């Protein structure tokens, strides 16, 4: 932490010096944002909520960005006093201080950043550093990042750094190099071509010192660990008229880690996405195969921290409550799957389109494990896998959504979805859950000042709540929600989720909010179900809570 404070002081000095030369801070401008979340919760044995010893929990952050010409500098202050429920381990999160700081200089040809930075190569399969405040995740790199653009259409990135680990930085060193060429910019004859082509390739290497890890059955022998682990990827992004195609293949060297129980099999991943779109219609098909591609800067790390790479999710990111009850968490150690997504707008004036037209959406996704054969345990190749053969079903869903404006004041969205969920993806044993979900979402613009939204959801599942499994998502559920927007400033919402069969729990929530320009204040009271919060296939376990929440966000 001392290093952070010293560098923060340096940052302030540099900024001060710079502003003095640039005739004061008026030469640049400062932007920023602030967010604070408070939570109170008390015990509720039915939903499994625990008493909070601190009575009041707080997460807060302030982002400040200073820009002046080619120069920019930023910092982020974070406070967890103590962290909200679900930010575990609590002892590692709690605290406050400067969590992020950087200096950057950018011209047309060059961008140099020193300090904390976020970067992504391609789709992220070999490198993606990012932060998500709701997941409590920040794997930024502290180091140096350089982007060089020698000619229009060519970008070369190079970086080196250490990843943030709560309030410290991990020991592993990450180095990366990436190049991307847009042929339509580089080759003059292709400048106006319908065929748009971009190629890219990257390589990331991490260094980590030795440690002693034994084979359990042979404790006099320790693993001969690679200290430098590399991963490379090549990608293509092309389009022709209404057609698009993106694909990326990544390969990783031997990387024995806690994620794969220290096996030496090399990793690989392939992702293909093809699409077609025209007015009123779009279709996209995605497929991926991931084999042993967990890539972290510390081999012994588990949970969601210290990932160097990111495996994109290809399941639909649902927003309705019962559709997102069983989110799919990407299995970086091995999975394969496909997704198809079709959107069609039935034209206005047609038989089914009516006066205002009708929007239809279809989505279907299937994710399975790999078909593997075990060849050994820790300290061996681990397993072999058949490339096009699938393993156990992990997740499947099909959803159809119809959105129709009924008249000038009413809009109805109706959704049906069918989901199959394998609890093994959350690390639990058990049989497949089969869920049917029906949703009706009606928005009524009462007048210019008032808007009401009604939401009704039903979930029918073959899962059953038992004290042993303690899965409080199980069973059959109904939900109702009313949301009232009053003018531009106020909103009130009330909702209740109730397990009427084979489940347990009654989760009611009431919230009131006020918006003014870039400021939003929300106060809520109710019960939060325990479960997984997933964003982009990356998940955080959220425990049950029962009490008051307060949120304030603003930007300037």
């Amino acid at each position: 932490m001392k290093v952070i404070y010293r560098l923060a002081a340096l940052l302030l000095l540099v900024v001060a010096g710079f502003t003095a030369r640039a005739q004061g801070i008026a030469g640049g401008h400062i932007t920023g944002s602030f967010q604070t979340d408070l939570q109170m919760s008390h015990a509720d044995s039915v939903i499994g909520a625990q008493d909070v010893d601190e009575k009041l929990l707080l997460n807060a952050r302030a982002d400040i960005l200073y820009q002046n010409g080619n120069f920019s500098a930023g910092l982020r202050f974070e406070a967890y006093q103590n962290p909200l429920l679900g930010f575990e381990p609590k002892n590692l999160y709690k605290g406050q201080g400067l969590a992020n700081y950087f200096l950057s200089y950018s011209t047309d040809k060059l961008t140099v950043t020193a300090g904390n930075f976020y970067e992504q190569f391609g789709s992220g399969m070999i490198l993606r550093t990012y932060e998500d405040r709701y997941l409590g995740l920040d794997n930024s790199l502290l180091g140096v990042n350089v982007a060089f653009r020698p000619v229009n259409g060519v970008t070369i990135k190079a970086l080196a750094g250490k990843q943030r680990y709560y309030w410290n930085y991990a020991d592993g060193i990450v180095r990366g190099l990436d190049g991307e060429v847009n042929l339509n910019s580089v080759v003059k004859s292709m400048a106006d071509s319908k065929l748009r082509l971009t190629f890219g390739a990257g390589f990331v290497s991490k260094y980590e010192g030795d440690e002693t890890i034994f084979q359990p059955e042979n404790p006099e022998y320790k693993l001969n660990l690679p200290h430098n682990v590399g991963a490379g990827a090549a990608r293509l992004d092309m389009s022709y008229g209404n057609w698009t195609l993106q694909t990326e293949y990544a390969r990783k060297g031997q990387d024995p880690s806690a994620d794969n129980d220290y096996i030496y099999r090399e990793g690989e991943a392939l992702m293909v996405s093809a699409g077609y779109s025209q007015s009123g219609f779009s279709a996209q098909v995605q497929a991926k195969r991931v084999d042993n591609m967990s890539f972290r800067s510390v081999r012994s790390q588990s949970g969601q921290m210290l990932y160097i790479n990111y495996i994109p999710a290809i399941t639909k990111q649902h927003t309705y409550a019962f559709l997102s009850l069983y989110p799919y968490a990407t299995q970086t150690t091995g999975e394969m799957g496909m997704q198809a997504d079709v959107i069609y707008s039935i034209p206005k004036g047609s038989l089914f389109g009516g006066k205002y037209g009708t929007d239809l959406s279809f989505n279907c996704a299937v994710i399975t494990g790999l078909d593997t054969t075990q060849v050994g345990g820790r300290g061996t190749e681990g397993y072999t896998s058949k490339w096009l053969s699938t393993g156990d079903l992990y997740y499947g869903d099909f959803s159809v959504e119809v959105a129709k404006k009924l008249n000038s004041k009413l809009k109805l969205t109706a959704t049906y979805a069918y989901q199959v969920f394998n609890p093994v993806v959350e690390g639990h044993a058990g049989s497949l859950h089969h869920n049917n979900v029906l949703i009706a979402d009606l928005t009524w613009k009462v007048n210019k000042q008032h808007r009401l939204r009604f939401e009704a959801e039903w979930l029918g599942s073959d899962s059953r709540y038992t004290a042993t499994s303690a899965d409080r998502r199980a069973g059959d559920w109904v939900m109702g929600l009313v949301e009232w927007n009053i003018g531009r400033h106020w909103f009130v919402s009330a909702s209740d989720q109730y397990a009427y069969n084979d489940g347990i729990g009654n989760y009611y929530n009431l919230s009131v909010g006020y918006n003014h320009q870039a400021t939003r204040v929300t106060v809520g009271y109710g019960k939060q179900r325990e479960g997984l919060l997933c964003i982009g296939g990356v998940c955080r376990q959220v425990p049950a809570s029962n009490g008051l929440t307060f949120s304030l966000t603003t930007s300037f």
Partner: protein
Amino acid sequence: MKRIAIPIFALALMFASCDKIEPDANGNYTVYAGPEIMWSEGSAVADHGHNALVEKYTGPRCSNCPNADAALDAIHESLGSRLVVMSITHYQEEPLAGLDTRTDDGGEWARYFGVSYRPTAMLNRTNVNGQWDLFVGAPAISGIGSSINAVGSEQAKVAIDVTATQTGDSTDITFNVELLADVDYPLNITLAVTEDSLKYPQLTPTGTDPEYSHNHILREVITDLWGVEVTSSASAGKIYQGRIKVALKSVEDVKNAHIVAFATDAATRQVLNCAQCEVE
């Protein structure tokens, strides 16, 4: 050309920074680790008493040493497991004949603690006003019992237990270290092997006993000489378990061997507690 030379050079460097490990004939990516300790969560130690470690420096040419042996045997008789004895053959004591029980580790300790005379004993490696508290000569060692009793009446800072099982040529040693008080110093654990019933010539006050039975003889230190660190900062109640698998090649007969485990404050070298077990 210069523009692409730098990225190509950088790319070559990057690809070079990727290790490739080759497996052995059995498909294992392992190397011999030597005796290293595997750590895990421990289980509570049943005995929270404060045991005493007496390190007795002797030698086959030390005619007064058998008297010290007899005195310690008598104390041992009354105290049982509260007393652990390691008999260290002084590095200057060449054997009269037969077995040479000097060890490099014992020699290092003797030099470090300034042990010149035989017999000399140390109780828990205690330092008083900058001087190691040595019991020099058989009469002094005979009177060590009251000091051992004083140790036993003190509250222990850590509790230790140790077990050892023999499978083929391999000895599997498991020990638990339970913190009975907060630790804010480097807490080390040392494992050593002693052996009883070793028969080799010994000078006695009355002559030479060619078949003298030597007990508690230090045969080797399994860990580093000054032990391996358990923790340097932890709260009372924390329990550590260590497991190590070794081949006890130094001993004549495993059935007569004991595993001695003792915890020390690595900053002061003081022994905080100890335990020993037979090899089952």
